[in-house]
C-alpha cells in the first residue's frame, strides 16, 4: 500500500517536471521565432511575418496552449524530444547514444565510492581515535580538499602522461578492431580507470564522513549496550546491530547527492573527453543547442527523481518504522 502511494507520488513529480519543461520556454517573452523578425535584432537572416506564421504553424506553436501541451506529452511518450540543431539528429537518438557511457562511468564509480566510503567510514568509527582512524581521516580530508577537475587533471598527468599506463581520452580506442569481446571489454575498462577514479576520489569523502559519524552515533546507542550485555562478540554486533542502523542516513544522503555526482561527471567527462551525457551537455551549452539542452535536463531530472525513488525503496527495506508512519 505504502509503496503504491510512493509510486503515485513520484509519478506526480515527473509530471510536474515535464510540465515545467514544457512551460519554461513558452513563458519567455515573444515566441520561438520572434527574434528572426525583430528589425532591431543583430542577426544575419531575417524572416517575413508570413514566413514566420507558416513556420509557427508547422511547429504547432499557433495552437492553443492546452493542445500544445497534449502534443508535447504525446511526443514524449512516443520518445520525440525534438531535433538537435548541432548534431542534426533527433535529440533522443543523440542522448541515447551517449547514455551508455555515462551509465557505465557513473554506475561503476558510484558503486565503488559508496562501498568504499561505507567500509572505510565504519572501519574508522570502529577504530575511533586510534592510528587507523587518524590515518584514514587525514588521507580522506586531503583528497576531498581538491576540486574534481583538478583531481582529474592531476591523475591524467601522473598516470596518463608521466607513467603512461592509462589512456586519458575517450571511452574506447578510436577505430580499434577487436579480436574478441573480452578484448573490447578490457579496452573499455582501461579507458574507464582514470575518469572513474577521479569521480570516486572526489565523492568518497561525503560518504566516508557521514558513515563515520553515523557509526559513532550508533555505537553509543543503548541497544548496542544491550547487545554487548548478551555476550555477543564485537564483530557480530558491528555487522548485525550497528551497520544497518548506521546505513540509514547514507541511503538518504546518496540520493540527495546524485545532483552533485552529475555535476562532477560534467567536469570529468570534459577533462577526459569521455563521450557521455556530461560531455554532451557541455557541447549543447557551447553551441546553444536548446532542444538538446532541454532533452538532457529532462533526462537528468528524471535520473535524480529515479535515484530518490530507489533510495526510498531501499530505506523501506532497511527501516521497518517508515512503513507504518
Amino acid at each position: 500500500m505504502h509503496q503504491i502511494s510512493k509510486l503515485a507520488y513520484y509519478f506526480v513529480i515527473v509530471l510536474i517536471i515535464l510540465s515545467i519543461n514544457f512551460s519554461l520556454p513558452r513563458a519567455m517573452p515573444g515566441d520561438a521565432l520572434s527574434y528572426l523578425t525583430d528589425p532591431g535584432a543583430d542577426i544575419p537572416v531575417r524572416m517575413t511575418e508570413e514566413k514566420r506564421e507558416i513556420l509557427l504553424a508547422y511547429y504547432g506553436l499557433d495552437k492553443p496552449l492546452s493542445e500544445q501541451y497534449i502534443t508535447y506529452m504525446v511526443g514524449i511518450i512516443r520518445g520525440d524530444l525534438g531535433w538537435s540543431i548541432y548534431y542534426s539528429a533527433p535529440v533522443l537518438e543523440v542522448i541515447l547514444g551517449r547514455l551508455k557511457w555515462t551509465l557505465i562511468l557513473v554506475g561503476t564509480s558510484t558503486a565503488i565510492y559508496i562501498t568504499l566510503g561505507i567500509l572505510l567510514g565504519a572501519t574508522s568509527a570502529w577504530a575511533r581515535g586510534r592510528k587507523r582512524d587518524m590515518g584514514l581521516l587525514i588521507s580522506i580530508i586531503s583528497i576531498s580538499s581538491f576540486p574534481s577537475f583538478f583531481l582529474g587533471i592531476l591523475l591524467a598527468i601522473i598516470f596518463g602522461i608521466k607513467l603512461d599506463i592509462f589512456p586519458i581520452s575517450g571511452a574506447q580506442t578510436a577505430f580499434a578492431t577487436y579480436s574478441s569481446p573480452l578484448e573490447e571489454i578490457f579496452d573499455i575498462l582501461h579507458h574507464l580507470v582514470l575518469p572513474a577514479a577521479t569521480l570516486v576520489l572526489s565523492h568518497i569523502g561525503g560518504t566516508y564522513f557521514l558513515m563515520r559519524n553515523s557509526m559513532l552515533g550508533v555505537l553509543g546507542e543503548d541497544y548496542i549496550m544491550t547487545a554487548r550485555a548478551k555476550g555477543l562478540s564485537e564483530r557480530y554486533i558491528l555487522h548485525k546491530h550497528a551497520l544497518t542502523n548506521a546505513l540509514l542516513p547514507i541511503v538518504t544522503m546518496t540520493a540527495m547527492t546524485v545532483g552533485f555526482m552529475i555535476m562532477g561527471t560534467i567536469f570529468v567527462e570534459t577533462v577526459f573527453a569521455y563521450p557521455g551525457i556530461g560531455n554532451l551537455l557541455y557541447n549543447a551549452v557551447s553551441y546553444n543547442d536548446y532542444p538538446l539542452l532541454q532533452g538532457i535536463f529532462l533526462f537528468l531530472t528524471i535520473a535524480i527523481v529515479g535515484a530518490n525513488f530507489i533510495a526510498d525503496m531501499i530505506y523501506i527495506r532497511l527501516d521497518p518504522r517508515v512503513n507504518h508512519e
Partner: protein
Amino acid sequence: MTLLRISDLKTQFPTPDGIVRAVDTIDLSIGERETLGLIGETGCGKTVLGLTLMRLLQSSTKTEGTIIYKGTNLLKISEAEMRRIRGEEIAMILQNPTTSLNPVMRVGGQIAEAIRLHQGLSKRDAKEKAIEMLDAVRIPSPSIRVNEYPHEFSGGMKQRVMIAMGLACNPSLIIADEPTKGLDVTIKSQIMKLLKEVTEERAMLIITHDLGVARELCDRIALMYAGELVEYATTGEIFEDPLHPYTRGFLGSLPSNGLVPIPGMSPSLINLPDGCRFHPRCGHATELCRRKHPDMIEIEDGHFVRCFHA
C-alpha cells in the same frame, strides 16, 4: 550460599574535568535466589555499578576491587570468558526499553540471538524458544509478535520483551535497571507481578528509585549516596528501623509519607565533600561529620550503616 560477592569495588572515569568517582569502595553480596534492591537518587552511580559487574564500561574506565561470582573474580578473567558470562550467567536489563531495543531488528531475533550464541540452538529452535520466552512474560499471541519490530510494542510490552531477553538463557543473576520507570500504575503493577515470579527462581539486583518497588520485590536493600553505600539491611529493617538520615529522608519523600523531599542536591562525583558525603544536607551533622569520613559499621546483625550518629 553467596552467589556474588563484591569487595572494595571502585569505578572511576577519567574526564577532562577530573576523575568521576562513580562507584566508591562498595561491598555487597547477593545470595542465590536473593533479591537485592539498590536505591539512590539520580546520578549516584547505580547504573555504573551494574555495568561494572557486567564489565560493559569503556576501556578508559578504571576499576579496582574484586567481583567474585561463583568463586571466580570477574575482574581477572579474559574478555572472551566474560562474554560467556554475559547473558548466560548474568543478564542485565538496561534502563529505558525504548532505546535499548534495536529498532531495525525483529523482537524475536533479538531474543533468539543470545539463545543461539550461548546454547548453540539452530535458528528455528531458537525462534521457538523466543516464542516461549514471549509467552512466559505474558505477551499475547507470541508467535505473531515474535516477528514484529520494537516500535510495534507499547512501553509496557517493550519492558516485557527486555525481561524476556534477560531470561532467555536462564541466567543465575539478573540485573534489572529501573524496570518500572515511566510505566503507568496498572502496567507497573503487572510488570512487578512478572518480576516477582522472575525473582523466585534466581538472584536479582534491582536498581530503582522507587521504594515501593523495592519493598515489594526485595529481600534486602542497599542505599547508595554519591558513589558509596550508606545503609544496607533487610527490607523489613530498612522500612521499620531506618538508621541513616539519608534513608529516613528518602522514606520521607515517599508519597505515603507526605512527599517531603531531602533538601539540597547530591554532590558532584568529581568534587566530593570532605567528611561525611551527606553532611551538607544532613540535619544532624556535627563538627565530626564535617571532618571525618564515617566507615560502614554493622550496628545490628546484618544491618550496616555509614553514620557517626546512627
